[in-house]
């Protein structure tokens, strides 16, 4: 897993196509997935995309491992809901469509205050300070119920003020399209940021802060400015959250949410700009869909995270880009049988792990419902020896198969990388 594998870069024409596709997906998604559950998920995905992208400004682009990014999105949510209530009282007049900007400004302000402290340091100390600040803000939520609303949080109603062009933000669809517009614009802006002097110097600070000081830049300033911009976009995500849920509780600033930003940004891949978008989609799929399907979803998530950290530290986007690079050299087709075998073996492992985990959960949590449980449409007796023997056998077979195929795959992969190197050398010589 060397850096060389990530050096593939798509051409500029592709960039326009990709942005158009992104806009189209945002536009068409609610027409394709029409159920109320998918609508809920789509709106949350938009919010998560902005939050994870803003987080990756720190992690992927600035090398800043923050454990407290939810502070900025969460306080953005609180600022937005207080303003929303002022609007509902008739005290203030702010269009609902601009409410996310209120969240953004709050995020920016808080990041300007706290960032002055955190960005003085880098590396482990930075990470520790963000962790401390995260805990501090969360504990403040219990001390200041006037602002944070205590246990119950603060509720509001987004259908207030004068409708603009007949848009009341009552129906979920209208909220979705508001979020979609913000998602698109914020994504474009954050991508544009990566092509500005500050954005590039942020990469330089990530790579080698020491040298940055000798080419005229104050590394603390670079980190501080980037931190504020990340806070701004996190705050926008927070404002959208307020509009979508109409209730904000203290958990939005909590360590769980901060951890989720980190985990899913990493899973999506911090090395590429679009990685966190994938991560955000996975975040909503996991927290909404997977958690509906099984009580053991956090366990599965943990296992998946472990496997990714060990075998694909570049995340899903890293995997995609590595394979696109092979495709660019026309070498992807050499791998498709291996991929098929890998996928097959993985399915067997997954099924085996799934059965075992679900059986354990059933025995521990659903014993009152009897020993029978259904898994993938099949009825399984969790007290029967055959079920356990079968599952164990399946697991051993799956792991064995996977390991066999994996070795073959690693060998093949190395061979292909060598061929690509040779090809590059040939091209350089000509």
């Amino acid at each position, binding site marked *: 897993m060397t850096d060389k594998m990530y050096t593939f870069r798509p051409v500029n024409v592709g960039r326009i196509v990709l942005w158009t596709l992104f806009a189209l997906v945002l536009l068409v998604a609610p027409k394709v997935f029409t159920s109320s559950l998918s609508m809920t998920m789509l709106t949350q995905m938009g919010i998560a995309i902005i939050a994870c992208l803003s987080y990756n400004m720190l992690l992927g682009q600035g090398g800043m491992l923050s454990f407290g990014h939810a502070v900025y999105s969460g306080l953005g949510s609180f600022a937005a809901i207080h303003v929303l209530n002022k609007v509902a009282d008739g005290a203030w007049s702010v269009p609902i469509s601009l409410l996310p900007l209120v969240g953004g400004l709050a995020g920016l302000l808080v990041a300007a205050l706290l960032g002055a402290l955190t960005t003085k340091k880098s590396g482990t100390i930075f990470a520790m300070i963000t962790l401390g600040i995260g805990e501090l803000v969360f504990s403040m939520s219990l001390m200041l119920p006037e602002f944070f609303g205590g246990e119950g949080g603060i509720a509001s109603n987004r259908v207030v003020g004068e409708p603009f062009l007949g848009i009341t933000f009552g129906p979920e669809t209208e909220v979705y399209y508001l979020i979609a517009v913000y998602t698109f614009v914020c994504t474009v802006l954050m991508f544009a940021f990566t092509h500005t*002097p*500050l954005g590039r*110097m942020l*990469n330089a600070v990530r*790579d080698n802060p020491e040298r940055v000081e000798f*080419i*005229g*830049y*104050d590394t603390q300033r670079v980190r501080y400015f980037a931190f504020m*911009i990340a806070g701004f976009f996190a705050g926008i995500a927070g404002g959208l959250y307020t509009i979508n849920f109409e209730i904000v509780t203290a958990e939005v600033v909590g360590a769980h949410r901060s951890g989720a930003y980190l985990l899913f940004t990493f899973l999506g891949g911090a090395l590429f700009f679009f990685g966190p978008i994938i991560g955000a989609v996975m975040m909503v799929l996991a927290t909404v869909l997977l958690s509906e399907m099984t009580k053991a979803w956090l366990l599965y998530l943990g296992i998946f995270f472990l496997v990714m950290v060990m075998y694909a530290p570049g995340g899903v986007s890293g995997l995609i880009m590595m394979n696109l690079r092979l495709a660019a050299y026309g070498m992807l087709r050499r791998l498709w049988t291996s991929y098929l075998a890998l996928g097959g073996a993985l399915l067997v492992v997954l099924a085996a792990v799934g059965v075992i985990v679900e059986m354990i959960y059933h025995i521990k949590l659903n014993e009152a419902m009897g020993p029978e449980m259904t898994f993938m449409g099949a009825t399984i007796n969790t007290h029967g020896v055959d079920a356990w023997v079968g599952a164990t056998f399946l697991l051993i077979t799956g792991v064995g198969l996977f390991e066999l195929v994996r070795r073959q795959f690693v060998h093949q992969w190395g061979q292909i990388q060598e061929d690509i190197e040779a090809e590059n050398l040939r091209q350089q010589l000509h």
Partner: protein
Amino acid sequence: MSEHKASAQGLALELRSVRKSFGKTEIIRGTELAIKAGERVALIGPNGAGKSTLFNLISGRLPITSGEILLNGKPIHGMKPYEINRLGLARSFQVSNLFPRLSVFENIRCAVLWSMGERYAFWRFLSKLDAVNQRAEEVLDKIRLRRKRDVHVTSLTYAEQRALEVGVTIAGGGDVILLDEPTAGMSKSETANFVRMIREVTEGKTLLTVEHDMGVVFGLADRIAVLVYGEVIAFDTPENVRSNDRVKEAYLGSVLAQNQAAEAGV
């Protein structure tokens, strides 16, 4: 002191009784050095003489214990490295110190940005900064890495990394350049080309370079400063330094003998 003041106008870099201690150990012991603008000076001396420490003091990486350092007549000791850099002093490092996940061109462009007034701008696209990009392309040509423009630093050969190290150093347009063993670890033929390149890119600038290769030192330098145990024991033209008894005794005799032995061996 009056002598110093009188000559201050023509001096690019001046060290006045600079001292540096680490704990109780004094590494730099009252170093005096006055380098004229446009001069090429080689700093030589045995291992542990304090050459790299001296570079770190001048460039602001380490604070001095006492004394004064002046850049173009202005005191710079106590300043941060980036403040010193903004005043026109740029340095390279003995071990290549680059941005590994950026391309060769991006490395150079980063080094150009501040000097062209771009600072922390996040409202302008890099691709639209014509002056910056033009300067970066020029530097790319000067250090002969045009063909590696979009290659990541990790894919460069050692000599190419050394060239980029010099490129990043000069890209900001500083007029006082400090190079820390730029040719260390290179082959003879690589070194010859490299010295030619250094000559070109430092044309009209003030150069202070640490160097172990005596061929390079005598070929490149207008004057040579000999640092032994934290003191400059000689600062003179190459001819005079070569015939200086104290230098011979302290350092050069053994080095020249080694060099000759090495050449005879080859």
